[in-house]
């Protein structure tokens, strides 16, 4: 069952003074299944945040339908089981961490006896239990992100929507968010998040949707998207103190006894690895330099910049679109 379903959704933008419309999304169709982690990727200005806002009833589509758990997204009840964390969130500065979560809990109608317990648990879970009495004004960015995540989970939602949850976090923070998302999936929740940090996406997403200039260029499991992209080469880092030449591959760089060798085929790789199975040789690492999502994305983005006829395409339109979009 689709927890989030966008069907032929279009959204345009028009500044107050001009008549021209800028299309942010065009006939976007997207479906998120229960229990999956869906990564929504794309360059800045592609329309990711706009899509998320449409999903939450914060914006209204020009055309098409948006449904949450089978209900129209603009209806308040559709969001009962949804948690949301916006990008660069602004919260009420003057509230303390506890008050903030308590307020949001009240908005869900969570009643007094259990509410306090729930808030404390959440604070514990995001690691802010000892900062609960400080005003949000005094929180660091990482802390704000964490309290934001706590807020998104206050109603124990079935679907969690996160807009750039890892932006501005240090690697530790990013790791924590990744773990949280995986935890959520483990307990049966669905997570939909947008990001432009592709490495994280590859690691944790079940499915990925790639949005470029308002259209979905690719959607599916990561492996499927990169299917058929056999690695063109491997990079093998090794230490070889002997004098014998390596059986195959090309030395890319060399420093004292450390070598970086490039091997072009699988049989060659095996040959090299077998060679290293002798005294004086140490294998340091093998890195398949396969096509990644990043390559795919760059290809999709660059591929569209081939100019077509008509006033709406071209670099200026792209600029405009990016400025007004998500």
């Amino acid at each position: 069952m689709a927890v989030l379903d966008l069907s032929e959704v279009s959204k345009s933008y028009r500044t107050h003074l001009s008549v021209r419309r800028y299309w942010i999304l065009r006939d976007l169709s997207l479906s998120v299944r229960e229990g999956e982690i869906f990564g929504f990727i794309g360059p800045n200005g592609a329309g990711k945040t706009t899509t998320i806002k449409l999903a939450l009833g914060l914006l209204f589509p020009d055309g098409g339908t948006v449904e949450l758990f089978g209900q129209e997204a603009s209806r308040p009840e559709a969001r009962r089981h949804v948690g949301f964390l916006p990008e660069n969130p602004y919260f009420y500065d003057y509230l303390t961490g506890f008050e903030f979560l308590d307020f949001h809990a009240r908005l869900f109608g969570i009643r007094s006896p259990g509410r306090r317990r729930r808030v404390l648990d959440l604070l514990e879970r995001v690691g802010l239990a000892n900062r609960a009495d400080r005003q949000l004004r005094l929180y660091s960015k990482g802390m704000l992100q964490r309290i934001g995540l706590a807020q998104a989970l206050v109603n124990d939602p079935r679907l969690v929507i996160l807009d750039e949850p890892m932006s501005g976090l240090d690697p530790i923070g990013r790791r924590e968010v990744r773990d949280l998302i995986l935890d959520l999936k483990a307990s049966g929740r669905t997570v939909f998040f947008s990001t432009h940090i592709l490495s994280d996406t590859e690691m944790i997403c079940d499915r990925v949707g790639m949005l470029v200039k308002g259209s979905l260029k690719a959607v599916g499991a990561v492996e499927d998207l990169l299917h058929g992209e056999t690695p063109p080469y491997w990079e093998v880092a090794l230490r070889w103190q002997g004098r014998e030449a390596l059986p195959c591959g090309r030395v890319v760089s060399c420093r004292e006894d450390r070598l970086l060798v490039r091997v072009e085929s699988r049989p060659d790789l095996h040959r090299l690895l077998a060679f290293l199975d002798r005294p004086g040789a140490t294998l340091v690492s093998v890195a398949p330099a396969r096509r990644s999502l990043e390559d795919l994305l760059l290809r999709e983005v660059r591929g569209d910049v081939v100019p077509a006829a008509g006033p709406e395409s071209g670099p200026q339109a792209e600029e405009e679109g990016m400025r007004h979009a998500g």
Partner: protein
Amino acid sequence: MKRARAARTAGAPLAATAGGLILLAALMQMRLDAVVRAGEGPSPLLYLPSGRYLKVVSLGFDPILADALYLWSIQYYSNYRIEDRYSNLEHIYKDIITEIDPHHLDAYLTGALIMSAEARRPDLALALLDKGIERNPGAWILAFDAGYLCYQDLRDYARAGAYFEKALRAPDVHPQVRRFSAEMTNRAGDRRASLKEWVAIHQTSPDDYVRTIAWNHVHDLKVQIDLEDLTFAVAAYRSRAGRLPRRLDDLVPAGLVSSVPLDPEERPYEYEPVAGRVAYGGSRVLGR
């Protein structure tokens, strides 16, 4: 597309309800206005503190405040339903508006007009104008207005003349004021001075029309003065000689006139020896 548009118009019932409520509120407003009108007490402005206090409180906006009050006062005094509206004329114009802005000429003029023409209190009007004249010596119109008031309502020509003279001291005074002044001098009784003024006007005016007017006045004044002088001389002759002179020329050797004046048309004045009356053969231009 259709579903989106349908959702958009769903806000219409809310807006319609809002409109309905505002309509009902308008009804409440009408009832409120009715209550207020029924119990219409003295106007709130009557309880304004003094103008000097207002000037301080207005924080530099005194001209605007004076204007606003002036505008209000016009509306107030045009409202014939308020029966006792004249009871605070002086307070409003003299103590408040002109205190806030002493150079607000309209306030003086209109206030004086209301005071004299509608409230029939020329004394108040003159007091107001006096204040204006004192604070605005260059504004001849105030003195002129005061003079005109004395002339028209009080028929106090001497006082009017004094005001007109004050007005004449201003550098850019309207030339007609001089003519008024000259005429007031006449009305006040000093014909000779009046004649002098009219002669001066005649000589200095560049305008044919004005010169004609001046000449007319000079003409009649001369006749009046001459007749007065001659009648006086005839009477003096009679009391001295015991009889009326036979001819006007007889007055000269008697030393009562230095010479017998001719009338403006250069004819001798008519003299009727039996009754001793001197008369002018022509007709007075201004018919007086």
